[in-house]
């Protein structure tokens, strides 16, 4: 069935972007009808104001279906792919393009922006409500009754801001309504008209926990759009830096989760390892956080000293033992914040969180264990020093799509380049799917555990809001 839908998409009109096809509205509707029974996962949905694009994955191949936007908008994908809901609301907020059959509730726009539909060609000024849009509890929160508690956007922690309304009829959370937009910086509007080098500076600062992934995905999209080959050395450096980033981000999460879970030994060791990794990054690239290391193509040959690697490998083994010791963190967080394989499939969650769901029930223990595994794999990768092979560009006609595996899952970038400048851009970050899955993940949790569960999820509001 998936092959059927993929074939239908491929019958659309080809575009300058390899793997993207424009469908007539009837074909788009037929695609939606067939998606109901097909397994083709949806990885992203966005608009450039003229068309709406849906990114699917067939096996390991990305496939983009596009449809022209009419005065009524475009037929919604959310009835057959729940993960499209957030993106449809974002497209409506930014472009004013509605998804027929989908929700028009705001997702990013809390009513304070001075313009409505800021990306549209004729975005209208609005007075902007000084108090913002009144926060109305959704039916799920109202139905839950009992106590309604808020969480965020300012908890004194170090994460990007977002707000949750939590309905607790008893001891456990039964309803969750996320409120996003606090971290929205209007990146799509900022990138328009920039030269790729300037755009890359902003891309590197989408989310500091996945900066290398964003830089690599953007560099790949750019390389496909412009037809410039990517030298082998740059590809290899990207792989190594991606491994360094994965280690650092996972260690940060383990340190946070251990501290919150009351496991001081794990917390101290994870924090110590993290500082060593940041120090190594400073020695290799001149920065503790890996901003601006990929574009222009990285020329550094990333080679971590053998002694530094050996220390990290030894500490990783110890951290693993500490994690699994009796009454250690693994036992303390068992059963909390379950993200099952079914939930992951429903919302299009991939990467380390989906991998954890395959390991067991997908609770916090599985998630943190998956992160520990990925740290081990990344350390082996750093030790092996793989040679990258040069990447030949696909297309080279002004439009490109690229992806990279980030610590929380795959990150996607798409861009259109006109006269040497970015004309349109989209970024797909795994956090948007995680936010949408929060009602399921937090269901039944105690209010005191919310912070802990969020910390281990790797959800970044700045990646979701852009």
């Amino acid at each position: 069935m998936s092959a059927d839908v993929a074939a239908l998409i491929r019958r659309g009109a080809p575009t300058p972007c390899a793997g993207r096809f424009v469908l007539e509205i009837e074909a788009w509707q037929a695609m939606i009808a067939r998606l109901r029974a097909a397994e083709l996962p949806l990885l992203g949905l966005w608009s450039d104001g003229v068309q709406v694009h849906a990114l699917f994955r067939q096996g390991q191949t990305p496939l983009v279906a596009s449809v022209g936007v009419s005065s009524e908008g475009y037929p919604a994908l959310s009835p057959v792919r729940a993960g499209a809901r957030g993106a449809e609301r974002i497209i409506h907020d930014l472009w004013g393009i509605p998804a027929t059959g989908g929700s028009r509730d705001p997702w990013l726009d809390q009513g304070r922006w001075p313009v409505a539909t800021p990306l549209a060609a004729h975005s209208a000024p609005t007075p902007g409500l000084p108090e913002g849009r009144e926060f109305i509890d959704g039916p799920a929160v109202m139905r839950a009754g009992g106590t309604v508690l808020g969480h965020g956007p300012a908890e004194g922690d170090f994460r990007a801001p977002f707000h949750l309304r939590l309905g607790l009829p008893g001891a456990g959370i039964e309803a969750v309504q996320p409120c996003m937009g606090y971290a929205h910086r209007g990146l799509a509007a900022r990138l328009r008209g920039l030269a790729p080098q300037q755009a890359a500076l902003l891309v590197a600062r989408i989310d500091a926990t996945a900066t290398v992934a964003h830089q690599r995905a953007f560099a790949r999209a750019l390389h496909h759009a412009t037809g410039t080959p990517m030298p082998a050395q740059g590809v290899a450096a990207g792989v190594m830096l991606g491994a360094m980033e994965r280690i650092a981000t996972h260690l940060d999460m383990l340190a946070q989760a251990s501290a919150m879970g009351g496991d001081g030994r794990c917390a101290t060791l994870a924090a110590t390892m993290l500082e060593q990794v940041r120090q190594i990054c400073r020695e290799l690239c001149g920065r503790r956080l890996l901003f601006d290391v990929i574009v222009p193509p990285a020329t550094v040959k990333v080679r971590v000293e053998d002694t530094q690697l050996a220390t990290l490998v030894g500490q990783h083994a110890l951290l693993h033992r500490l994690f699994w010791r009796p009454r250690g963190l693994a036992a303390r967080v068992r059963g909390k914040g379950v993200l099952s394989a079914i939930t992951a499939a429903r919302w299009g969650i991939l990467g380390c969180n989906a991998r954890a769901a395959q390991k067991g029930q997908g609770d916090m223990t599985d998630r943190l264990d998956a992160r520990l595994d990925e740290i081990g794999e990344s350390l082996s990768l750093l030790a092996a020093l793989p040679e990258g092979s040069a990447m030949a560009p696909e297309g080279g006609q002004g439009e490109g799509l690229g992806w990279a595996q980030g610590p929380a899952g795959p990150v996607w970038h798409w861009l259109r380049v006109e006269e040497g400048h970015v004309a349109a851009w989209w970024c797909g970050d795994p956090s948007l799917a995680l936010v949408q899955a929060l009602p399921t993940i937090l269901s039944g949790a105690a209010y005191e555990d919310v912070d802990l569960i969020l910390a281990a999820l790797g959800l970044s509001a700045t990646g979701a809001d852009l």
Partner: protein
Amino acid sequence: MAQLNLFWPEGMPLPRLEALDIFHIESGGCTGCGLELASLSRALLAGSHPIRFVPTPRQAGMLLLTGSLTVGMAPVVELAWQAMPGARVLAVVGDCAVDGGLFGGNYAVLGGVGARARTRVALPGCPPAPDEILAALVRWQTTEGKR
């Protein structure tokens, strides 16, 4: 004298400092500054240092902002500031919070708070390292903060 071992394996001696409770708000950045603050917070905790990051503005003497101020976060920052008791000071850390950095004003962002409000600590950098943030706090405490 307290030692900070987390950033420097050989340890770094710290001067004796006054207690300071800091409430941090990430007001719309990439969280890079937040990550470095988290590192600092862990090191301070490990060293039982009297500078602490607290979970509520009601017990804080310093409001520390990172990130450019988004229109969504502006009222949140205002509420936190109003909730702080007694003498309170504002600190901005990182280019975004100091003057907007790469994220200047647009429809969703007001810009850096440092360019609009009176701040007592303003530390540029993208992001400044934990030792630089600590040095800025110590500098403020040993000069202005004692007055």
